[in-house]
């Protein structure tokens, strides 16, 4: 089983929902592994109050040219979709490392064995962090200055699948570009966290569209439900065959718990019940856990 929590735009409270739901699920006895695939700004560990551990580098292929063998045929430059290889007038290829995605297309087309050698570049890290809540957190973190988050999302997701125990519970980045689809891919359930403000509603439609395109059962959690027109969220959900499963009111307690890095489900605040209720629904959905 795999469940992804996503939410169109940033700041909708997606991570708050993900973190609290994960803890609540574990408290109900569900074995799970939590993956933070927001590789450009991962901070679920901060909300969980843990420090990232077990760092492992993620390296990517990068061509290195052996100019003594290269015949300057330009094939590598022509095939590179990223335009990461530029050639001089006489055909000598040069790499612009920042643009290279590590796809190996250049290596595949190069007709001269050994002209393209295996170079490597560090693009980020993955972390496997034990948490005091009984589940492991897997985090992907893109290195600053790197442009492409896709390879890191792929690497972090692989790592999460390797170490997973029970349910794989995924928190994605904001937006609905292809790195979010990669994080969400193969989920049995997509939980979209939304806001009933005009801005939130616009982004809700996009995330529901993604759920539809990926043919995934989709649930909607309305955060700050009293701040706008939640009827519109219900309408949209209906249009996409999604189900609104929870409403979270705007709450100072949640803001406080977020600010302090102390998950609200561990407190006695009444808001904790919302997440417990949600966890029970998830439990029913996955059939008593895995």
């Amino acid at each position: 089983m795999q469940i992804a929590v996503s939410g169109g735009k940033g700041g909708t409270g997606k991570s708050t929902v993900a973190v609290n739901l994960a803890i609540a699920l574990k408290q109900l006895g569900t074995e799970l592994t939590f993956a933070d695939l927001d590789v450009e700004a991962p901070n679920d560990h901060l909300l969980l109050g843990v420090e990232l551990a077990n760092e492992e580098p993620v390296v990517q292929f990068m061509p290195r040219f052996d100019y003594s063998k290269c015949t300057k045929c330009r094939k590598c430059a022509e095939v590179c979709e990223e335009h990461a290889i530029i050639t001089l007038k006489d055909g000598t290829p040069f790499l612009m490392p920042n643009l290279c995605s590590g796809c190996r297309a250049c290596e595949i087309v190069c007709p001269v064995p050994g002209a393209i050698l295996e170079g490597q570049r560090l693009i980020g890290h993955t972390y496997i962090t034990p948490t005091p809540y009984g589940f492991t957190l897997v985090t992907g973190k893109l290195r600053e200055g790197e442009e492409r988050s896709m390879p890191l999302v792929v690497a972090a997701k692989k790592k999460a699948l390797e170490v997973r125990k029970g349910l794989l519970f995924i928190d994605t980045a904001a937006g609905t570009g292809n790195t979010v689809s990669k994080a969400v891919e193969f989920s049995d359930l997509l939980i979209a966290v939304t806001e009933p403000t005009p801005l939130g509603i616009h982004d809700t439609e996009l995330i529901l569209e993604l759920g539809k395109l990926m043919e995934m059962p989709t649930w909607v959690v309305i955060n700050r439900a009293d701040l706008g027109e939640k009827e519109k969220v219900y309408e949209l959900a209906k249009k996409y065959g999604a189900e609104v499963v929870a409403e979270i009111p705007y709450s100072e307690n949640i803001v406080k718990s977020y600010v302090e890095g102390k998950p609200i489900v561990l407190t006695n605040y009444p808001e904790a019940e919302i997440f417990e209720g949600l966890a029970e629904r998830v439990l029913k959905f996955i059939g008593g856990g895995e």
Partner: protein
Amino acid sequence: MQIAIASGKGGVGKSTITASLLYFLKDEYKLIAVDADAEAPNLGLLLGVIEWEEEREHIGAKVARINTESCIRCGICMERCPYDSIYIDDEGNYVVNELTCEGCNVCGLVCPVPGTIALEEVRSGVVRKATTKYGFPIISAQLDVGRPESGKLVTEEKEWAKKIMEELNLEHMVVDSAAGIGCQVIASLGGADVAILIAEPTPASLSDVQRAYKVVQHFREPAYLIINKADINPGFTKLREWAEAEGIPILGEVPYDRAIPESMVMLKPVVEAFPESKAAKALREIAERIKGEIIG
């Protein structure tokens, strides 16, 4: 002058603050606004834009497609795809997941049956333009669901903005950067003269803005900081300490104020909707400092 406003992650009030600053700058300066968050654009909405005057489709993303008729189901493409974007469907066909494909064409190169895999150009989104009711133009974009290369959309937005600046003789471009630190943000910050960072006093926001600042440093741009919701976490001093240690001037602090979410529901900059609110007053002072110290 090109001013980029960034935060490292969404949700810390970047667009609200940008909209308010634009509101204060519009009378004195000839400017254009660029919403560089192509995945979740909202600056246009916050400035009351309902209809776009001009919309350009951006065709440029590429995705691979497999011709099931000629495919011999050897599986080489699936093995070699760097992003695991090829899978076998229920009928046993090899299929590309267009929602995760990066368009690198590795599958096309390794497929032993010529012509079976083709790389096709698809729409990646739209870039659009409007004139706000405040008189200045805005460029925005919207990436289509599941498409790569939001950075390219941002680059196109900025190019269009530059053209308009020439045509209308405008002096300043204010770029509301995307969330994150990837290609969109790099495209947003590239070429800017100065970066204004927005953060709130929480460990998460500090971590995000520190990462955004590293990208700013790559470009060697001077940076400033605005602290939003400055009073929500009184015990947290690390944001301030970090800015001081890095020598990043703090332009001001905006207190937490319910007027901000309420103004967002009204689709107006908070300084217009609630000019007497605490937040509006703080933003007015910040705008004055920007006029004096940054734009000059």
